[in-house]
């Protein structure tokens, strides 16, 4: 058997079920790996070793008692620090929530526990999920396992780095503008944004409510699908949760066959501003799909070019309201409460000290966009653009089964390169934002290494609302062909870790 921490989630679950390995052993192997590499990667904000060991023991006891085990029982997982956990702190990467211990579990946290998944700890993220590099974390950035001097993407960069560094076979993130797919792409792992409403937001500390979508990160398409099925499904505690069956994503991930499918290339996302090596790998991936029997056609989505500006009005608007509750009155940081100041002054001091620069920037943007007299021109107009983008998708999906594009315009960029240039940082999400605005499903799968810098490139596959299974089928085909052509999984070439 391979080193336990190098096994996929599917392999671990099978071993635990079959008695080839205990959940306790698997957990110890991953805790040891974290101890070994996390001082360099810094994927975790909090490692819950004892709680993980307890969860693993419980799985082993259930197996010993002859109880049936779920498809991911005993598999370790890295949970983004935006999900509430009643036995671990939840900070959202922010000083304002430093030390907050929620009194309740998020629905997804609870579902993971009930499935016997072993939560190793909470992973780093851009503060309140605002960013594309984890550099906006109040607790310092995480590092890309391919090159420790580069970013792991964001905002779910802690989870993507943990998965890429073999600290956990599975990670959970949230995607608001690309925060799962972009870090997945630049870390060379699979990142999935399911259909909006397919995964519960209850207990996910909100950034932008109409966009936030929890989803899986994994090293294989099948592992992502297994996690997707465990996480998903209707939640009566979330009014925006869709009451419909979960699309058959695991079956689709096992059906790596694109023959007869029609695949649309979005020309708006292949032109200027894209790194040549990224475009080269993207073009190869499209040719590969054609060679596997798919029909490829170009489908223009003219309004996608307006997605980024629309997103930077809608997401900050919602954030400005969602983040209003962090005022030092009830939980988290409180500044200036010395008996001489009014509640309003304490609120202002707390927020001034507790929020980082990017969060403040977006609160100000959103407050402005919602202001009386500006609402129609900014928030209102952005919502109209959102409708046009949704219509672009609907028209495209009338013609093709899935759309494809590069996940990101560039590979992982060096730490520090974009921290003083918000616009450059925002461009990392250029291709991922349309699916967040429209609410449809999208997946990023590695499609090789960029010839110019040797870093991983992601292929984004976009599918219609509640047709998440389609992108798994295409993703599995790309993954299989890539592994075959290289003779081993892409991640074996990650050189960042000794």
């Amino acid at each position, binding site marked *: 058997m391979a080193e336990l921490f190098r096994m996929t989630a599917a392999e671990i679950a099978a071993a635990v079920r079959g008695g080839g390995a205990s959940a306790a052993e698997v957990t110890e192997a991953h805790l040891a790996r974290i101890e070994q590499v996390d001082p360099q990667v810094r994927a975790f904000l909090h490692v819950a070793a004892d709680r993980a060991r307890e969860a693993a023991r419980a799985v082993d006891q259930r197996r010993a008692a002859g109880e049936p085990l779920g498809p991911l029982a005993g598999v370790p997982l890295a949970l983004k620090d935006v999900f*509430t956990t009643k036995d671990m702190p939840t900070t959202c990467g922010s000083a304002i929530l430093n030390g907050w211990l*929620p009194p309740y579990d998020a629905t997804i946290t609870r579902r993971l526990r009930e499935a016997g998944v072993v939560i190793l700890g909470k992973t780093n993220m851009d503060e309140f999920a605002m960013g594309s590099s984890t550099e906006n974390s109040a607790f310092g950035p995480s590092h890309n396992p391919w090159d420790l001097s580069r970013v792991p993407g964001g905002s779910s960069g802690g989870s993507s780095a943990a998965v890429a560094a073999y600290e956990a076979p599975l990670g959970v993130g949230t995607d608001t503008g690309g925060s799962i797919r972009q870090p997945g792409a630049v870390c060379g792992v699979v990142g999935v944004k399911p259909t909006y409403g397919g995964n519960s937001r*209850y207990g996910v500390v*909100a950034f932008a409510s109409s966009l936030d979508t929890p989803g899986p990160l994994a090293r294989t398409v099948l592992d992502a699908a297994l996690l997707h099925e465990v996480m998903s499904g209707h939640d009566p505690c*979330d009014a925006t949760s869709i009451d419909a069956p979960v699309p058959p994503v695991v079956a689709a991930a096992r059906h790596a066959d694109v023959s007869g499918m029609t695949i649309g290339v979005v020309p708006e996302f292949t032109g200027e501003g894209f790194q040549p090596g990224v475009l080269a790998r993207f073009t190869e991936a499209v040719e590969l799909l054609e060679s596997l029997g798919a029909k490829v056609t170009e489908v223009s989505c003219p309004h996608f070019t307006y997605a980024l500006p629309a997103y930077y009005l809608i997401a900050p608007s919602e954030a*400005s*309201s969602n983040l209003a*509750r962090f005022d030092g009155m009830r939980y988290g940081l409180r500044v200036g409460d010395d008996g001489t100041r009014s509640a309003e002054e304490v609120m202002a001091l707390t927020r001034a000290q507790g929020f980082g620069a990017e969060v403040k920037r977006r609160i100000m943007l959103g407050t402005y966009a*919602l202001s*009386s007299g500006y609402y129609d021109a900014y928030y209102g107009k952005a919502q109209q653009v959102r409708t046009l983008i949704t219509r672009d998708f609907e028209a495209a999906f009338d013609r093709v089964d899935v759309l494809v594009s590069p996940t990101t315009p560039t590979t992982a960029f060096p730490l520090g390169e974009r921290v003083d240039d918000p616009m450059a940082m925002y461009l990392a999400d250029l291709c991922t934002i349309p699916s967040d605005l429209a609410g449809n499903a999208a997946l990023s799968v590695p499609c090789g290494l960029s010839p110019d810098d040797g870093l991983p490139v992601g292929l984004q596959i976009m599918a219609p609302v509640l047709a998440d299974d389609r992108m798994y089928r295409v993703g599995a085909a790309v993954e299989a062909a890539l592994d075959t052509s290289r003779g081993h999984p892409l991640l074996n070439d990650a050189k960042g870790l000794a």
Partner: protein
Amino acid sequence: MPSAMGRGGGVGASTTLVGYDEAVSRYDPLIGLETHVELGTRTKLFCGCPATFGGEPNTHVCPVCLGLPGSLPVPSRTAIEYTIRIGLALNCSIAEWCRFARKNYFYPDMPKNFQISQYDEPLCTDGWLDVVLDESEAGADGGPRMFRVGIERVHLEEDTGKSQHLGGATGRIHGADYSLVDYNRAGIPLVEIVTKPVEGTGSLAPAVAHAYVRELRDLLRSLGVSDVRMEEGSLRSDVNTSLSPRGSGRWGTRTETKNVNSLRSVERAVHYEIERQAAVLDAGERVIQETRHFHEDSGITTAGRSKEEAQDYRYFPEPDLVPLAPPRDWVEQIRAALPELPSARRARLQEAWGITAAEMINIRNAGALDLVEQTIAAGASPADARKWWLNELARRANDTGAELASLPITPADVAAIAALVQSGALNDNLARQAIEGVLAGEGTPDEVVAARGLAVVSDDTALAAAVDEAIAAHPDVADKIRAGKVAAAGALVGAVMRATRGQADASRVRELILARLTDS
């Protein structure tokens, strides 16, 4: 919000008012009311916490109503149903599609620093409520005067928590040593009912405001959607008032008097604002658009937050909730299940009891409608039921400051006493003593009658001596009767009744006196 709360009295506290009659002779008042009603649902609007009043502070709370990070609202179907019920009873259109919106502002008793409310897409719009003014404001035909108040909108929102400012002298945030917040109330469903501007009331503006809130209260009670206790704050009214020069047809600048918590106060607040604003306008100044606070003790209003430095609430559609689209068949089911509304019930009973509209208004104003109806159901005649409740019992309730309905006497007791009078076993005087006994906890009417030995004396031999004594004591009266002035007999009847401590049958006494003194 609190920063301006300590502002001083402004015009009104310091200026001479214009007399009311004078004010309304030269200015047309325009009023409007915004009424908040806490719904009587079992749970809060967006979570499963109990929506009951009171409780130890911060015991009826959960992550949702505390607005903890990550928590999400899920709307209560019952609260939506109650709101639709109110809308239908107020003759509103029910939206086929509407949304909740966030109203953003910072205040410690708001767990999320925004309130989930409705903004430009309310659930119910464009209705009306007919209100009946009191007898004293009789209409042209001499009957009670009706007024149709237009309803602009009815919407659903969540209530806030409650702040308590401790350590200071005023109970206000300024000067307090510290503040405590109780979130038990946070998230209780609140319905806001907004009238259209009520024009053409003239001098009746305060009475219309009073009658509107009273009719609305009765309507809400009959719908079973709220217990409507004004003193516990489950119904709170804000009253907008403005004046314009008589006949100008223009609308003046309005003030909003907040949280007026009794029917009487609603009337007084409008009355005061008319006098105050007339003084401001007479002085050539302009009325400031502002929130004002009503003081129960002095009956005046004082300036609060100015609306001219208006707060920007940055309303936008609540992204945590999906749009609300009540199916038409559901709305029709709710409509079909509406109970009889107070105005229809009053019309039906007025007809059945054979009384005038003014008499009905008196019954309603005394809070005696249910009691009278139940007393009649227990066998009393409508006239008797009204007589005992509105005269004897209303007086006693008034003396002790109690609600009529809270007196320790049941409609069945009153019906039993009325029956004793009807049968001749008691006269009115004895009946009053029986009521006194029941109220004093001496037992049922029968028990009180037995224990106190209340019985009409109609035995001639027992009365004869008393009649003789009365004639002997009042020879001048006796002479008048002998001379044919039969009407003078009343004085002798009264003397006999006093002598028998009211137990005599007065009509028999009269017969005996006349038999003695006249030939007939």
